[in-house]
């Protein structure tokens, strides 16, 4: 419902309206805070080698399970590695999995949903029934089951998360396309001889993209949570490469001695997910003039 409202509210965009949208987004407190949080996490992940002198993988037994200090802000883990350093490097994998899996889901789900909404008929019925079936599985369970058969590792995690988010993405794309399919400018494009592909690409998609942008931002938050959960269960990227979920799992086993190895990565996940949630809410509000209370 929100998707169709968004799509209709953003149809017939002009450069002036786009500039207005940018202003609304920059002025929106949630979007601003979310943007800053995400920028911080991205900066930390990308610039990790310049922000910390420690190696995220090299073990240092004399420093195992040290408490936070001026030199080790979040203390050290069971193998003496600096927890803050591993949190920074772990962000690379979490963010990469999040961005890649949501992009893949957007590409697959967006295309399938757009085609289904545009052509309708048996294609639409088939896509909707298939998405009903996919959505009947709790998302994380489906991802775990897929990884049980595909095996763990970075690319398989990306694929599993992309598959579980393809169905919801297809539904949003379908609703957005349906909401603008019968607009006059679409009929006009057809009347002057534009083919289906051109109508979809040039006239429908640009005007139906808004709900997909919102959905993708909010899905990024969920994808990062899913990646962390899969890594926590040992199904994600394998050690010694640091991932936040795997660090919490390792930290849990030494909690009686030091809680920091589990607390640090959990805080990083929370800040990142909070950032994407706030940004997603901000984009949705900025795009939809009807949303005031959410």
């Amino acid at each position: 419902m929100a998707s169709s409202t968004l799509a209709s509210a953003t149809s017939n965009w002009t450069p002036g309206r786009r500039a207005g949208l940018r202003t609304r987004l920059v002025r929106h407190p949630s979007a601003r805070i979310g943007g800053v949080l995400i920028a911080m996490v991205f900066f930390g992940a990308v610039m990790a080698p310049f922000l910390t002198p420690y190696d995220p993988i090299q073990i240092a037994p004399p420093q195992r399970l040290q408490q936070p200090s001026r030199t080790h802000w979040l203390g050290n883990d069971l193998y003496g590695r600096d927890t803050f350093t591993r949190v920074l490097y772990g962000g690379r994998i979490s963010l990469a999995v999040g961005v890649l899996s949501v992009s893949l889901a957007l590409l697959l789900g967006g295309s399938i949903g757009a085609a289904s909404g545009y052509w309708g008929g048996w294609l639409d019925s088939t896509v909707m029934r298939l998405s009903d079936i996919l959505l009947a599985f709790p998302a994380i369970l489906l991802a775990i089951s897929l990884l049980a058969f595909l095996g763990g590792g970075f690319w398989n995690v990306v694929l599993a998360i992309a598959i579980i988010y393809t169905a919801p993405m297809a539904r949003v794309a379908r609703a957005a396309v349906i909401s603008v399919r019968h607009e006059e400018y679409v009929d006009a494009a057809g009347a002057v001889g534009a083919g289906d592909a051109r109508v979809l690409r040039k006239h429908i998609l640009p005007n139906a993209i808004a709900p997909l942008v919102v959905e993708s931002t909010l899905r990024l938050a969920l994808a990062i949570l899913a990646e962390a959960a899969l890594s926590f269960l040992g199904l994600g990227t394998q050690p010694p490469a640091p991932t936040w979920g795997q660090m919490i799992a390792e930290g849990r086993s030494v909690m009686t001695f030091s809680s920091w190895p589990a607390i640090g990565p959990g805080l990083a996940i929370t800040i990142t997910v909070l950032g994407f949630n706030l940004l997603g809410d901000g984009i949705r509000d900025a795009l939809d003039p009807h949303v005031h209370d959410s």
Partner: protein
Amino acid sequence: MLTLPTVLGVVVAVFLLIRLVPGDVVTQLIGLEGSLPRGRVEELKELFGLNRPLHVQFGEYMSKVARGNLGKSLRTGRPVGPELVRRFPVTVQLATMGLAIAIAIGVPVGILAALRRGRIADYVATAFVLLGLSVPSFWLGVLLILLFALRLGWLPPTGYISPAESVAGNIQHMLLPALSLGLVLAAASTRIVRSSLLEVLGRQYIRTARAKGLWESAVVLRHALRNALIPVVTVIGLQFGTLLGGTVIIEQIFALPGIGRYALEGINLRDYPVVQGAVLAIALSFTLVNLFVDMCYGFIDPRIRYE
């Protein structure tokens, strides 16, 4: 009614999941075991029926599932069906307690936030919502163990006691896992109760109710909340899937003998009949919960009728 095709679709999807593995499950098993004698490989293929055409395998699978025969565990040799039945109450109790905690926190906090819109209570509730939706439930579980079990010593960190043994012991063991699941769902519930109630509170019939001199509690509970419940029930119903998915991880953290942990044990040991049975049980439970949620609409809003 689309539940039946969805249920059939879920059964087919689980069948395909196990057969569309690159290579086949026997190859995967061999990968885990190192190597197996050729006789054993053939025996395993026979066991899975992998040396027969796909449609024959499908017919046999459907016939077995219809009779409740989900095969035997490759590791323990025990039938999967009875094991699922034995573990099901643990998962149901965990999910129900999580849901109860979510409603007990989410509904009053959501009402308070809507009634005190723009004041401190609303900001506190909004902060709770934002944090609750951003914290991973498994990390929350770890933090709860750290605080209530290791630091304060109030509750046991892990383990399970059946209610038949001790009701108090059972509640003590289930409280932290249920809180880990329930607090996250409480945030989602608070958000939807607040926004749904705010919308309803602006309607004309609420103004009429106030104008005729009703107590504020009667206006809110009898007139506003009931009309605000449909989206709340929808969201809580949809979130129940997240709750069921969450049990897989939470049961693992707290060592609870539920279906989620059984599925994970099956996955770690490549015990495919176990994975197939457990995934099927959880997905079917979710589908039935969604059906139940659909049916609830008619009770909440008498205008909704089913043909």
